């Protein structure tokens, strides 16, 4: 039993625990924060698999940008406390059915396809090295330089547009 396996077990438990925490907490802000934790744990999974770039993207894009947006929306709408009581009537049976389907699928995959059949190529050292990062940077700033640069203008335009629509004007006009 090597260190990776132990790490994996701990992380897997953490991932499941945070996912459950997200689902079960009645406060939407707590749910969002649990989701951030979950994303962070998944990012460590990527690191274990030797994919540093995806790990960093997971942290910055998902745990960072998208979740901040979630939190903003939750807080702006003031929807942080879930009203106690009734969920949708059809939700529980539907959720139970889908959960059963998922478990059966996973069990089938684990039993029938658990052992690799045929030729499986493990990822080479090259895939997981920083060399792949370099390759990606070269593509992003070489071949895809133009789309990359236009995107920056696009973001500027979106920002200007949002400000135009939301800005308070002098004299009380919204």
């Amino acid at each position, binding site marked *: 039993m090597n260190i990776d396996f132990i790490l994996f077990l701990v992380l897997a438990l953490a991932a499941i625990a945070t996912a459950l925490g997200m689902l079960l907490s009645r406060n939407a802000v707590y749910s969002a924060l649990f989701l951030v934790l979950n994303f962070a744990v998944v990012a460590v999974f990527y690191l274990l698999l030797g994919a540093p770039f995806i790990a960093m993207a997971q942290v910055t894009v998902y745990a960072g940008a998208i979740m901040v947006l979630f939190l903003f929306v939750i807080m702006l709408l003031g929807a942080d406390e879930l009203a106690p009581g009734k969920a949708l009537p059809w939700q529980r049976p539907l959720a139970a059915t889908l959960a059963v389907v998922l478990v059966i699928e996973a069990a089938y995959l684990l039993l029938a396809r658990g052992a690799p059949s045929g030729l499986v190529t493990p990822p080479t050292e090259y895939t997981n090295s920083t060399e792949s990062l370099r390759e990606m940077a070269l593509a992003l700033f070489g*071949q895809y330089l133009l789309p990359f640069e236009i995107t920056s*203008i696009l973001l500027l*335009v979106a920002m*200007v547009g949002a400000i135009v629509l939301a800005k308070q004007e002098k004299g009380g006009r919204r």
Partner: protein
Amino acid sequence: MPQPQDYQTLLPVIVLAVWACALLLLDSFLIQRKGLTACLAAAGLAITLGLTLSQIGRSSSGFSGMVVLDGFSTFINALQLVSGLLGVALAYAYVKRMGIERGEYYTLLLFSVVGMMLMAQATDLIVVFIALEMLSIPLYVLAAFNRTQAASEEAGLKYFLLGAFSTGFLVYGITLVYGATASTNLSAIFAAASSTSNLLLTIGAALILVGFGFKVAVVPFHMWTPDVYQGAPTAVTGFMSSGAKIAGFAALLRVFATAFPAIAADMTDILWALAAVTMILGNLVAISQTDIKRMLAYSSIAHAGYILMAFVPYGNPAVAPVSIAAGLFYLAAYVITNFGAWGVVIALEQPDGKGLQISDYSGLFWRKRGLAVAMTVFMLSLIGFPPTIGMVGKFYLFRAIIDGGFTGLAIIGVIASLVSAFYYLRVVVNMFMREGEQKIEREFWLDLTWGAAAFLTVAISLAPGWLFYLASAAGLR
């Protein structure tokens, strides 16, 4: 590293984008003089137009095959810049009158033109996608620019939601095409597609068509058009109805003609049906409209159908060049006539939202002859009645379609035009034969816009050869 040739290929777009960014910054110092912002925006468009015209006859590709410069892109870009200039001219007095004068109006308009130009030059689906967003996002904001009016806000939101929805289709189509051909570059897709016939590719192309169909308002993806055109500030509607259409059709043509000739057999039938349905439905529903903005919205849907007709034989190399030239000519004719008509609408619109019913045009001839005659010219041109540019455009278009062997479609087009005469002529009848009162806004740039548009609508129809020659020379690289 980008080479000088890369910059050369994209020079007008880069200049306009930099100009727009600078104007955004400068505008915050021009607190009380938003008129100056308009002039600077117009100057930027004019300089870019000059640069674009200086590129006539050049042809190159740049940024690792992401963009291309050719006769087609030069023609479309010049048309876009002219429509940008007309958009500024329409807005100049209108935004003051409506109390929505803010410098960002012009900056957003410039950014939208940047996106439109980029779209005509894009040869990679990723650039097509980003350019489409670049032209759409400013338009969403401009549609909602009159924020105190619920209708304008609704127009902006509706346009935004349906626009985002349609972008989803486009992106999904692009991913499927990538899945089928392992590339987003148009010529690479062509090379990969001709070796295999692939269902995935056809579905991807169809989804891309849906995405563009939303932008150019083709039935059945036209639902947003009447509400958005009616609710948006009229100057925005005038610009949007021309600019977004040109850009959408330009990208549609480039993507399909460059990347998808291999599946032309499937696509031609779909395009045929879309064009026919669009012409019929647009013209039929327009009959029952009483609001001039809604009527022109349905008219713009119908015209999208006519223009789409030119694309039906895109896969047939014997016919395609002529029919595409006819389509480009029709697009130019539509832009001139359309801007003129929206100019007249702006001249009659009051700040309280009155003056937009067709009945408000009653007796216009007896109040202001020039305006009524100009509107008559535009209505006749939209029908396709001589001596107007619309008639010449329809003539080229129908001839090209019949040469391509689509006589049935041409007949549908002619019948649809006959039907359209009913509602266009109703405006004319109102102006000449009814009694009425109206207040008319006089303003130099507005008068110049509709006056020049009316003059060109008649004048070009008398000597259309040079414009058709330019359209024929505007080949894809």
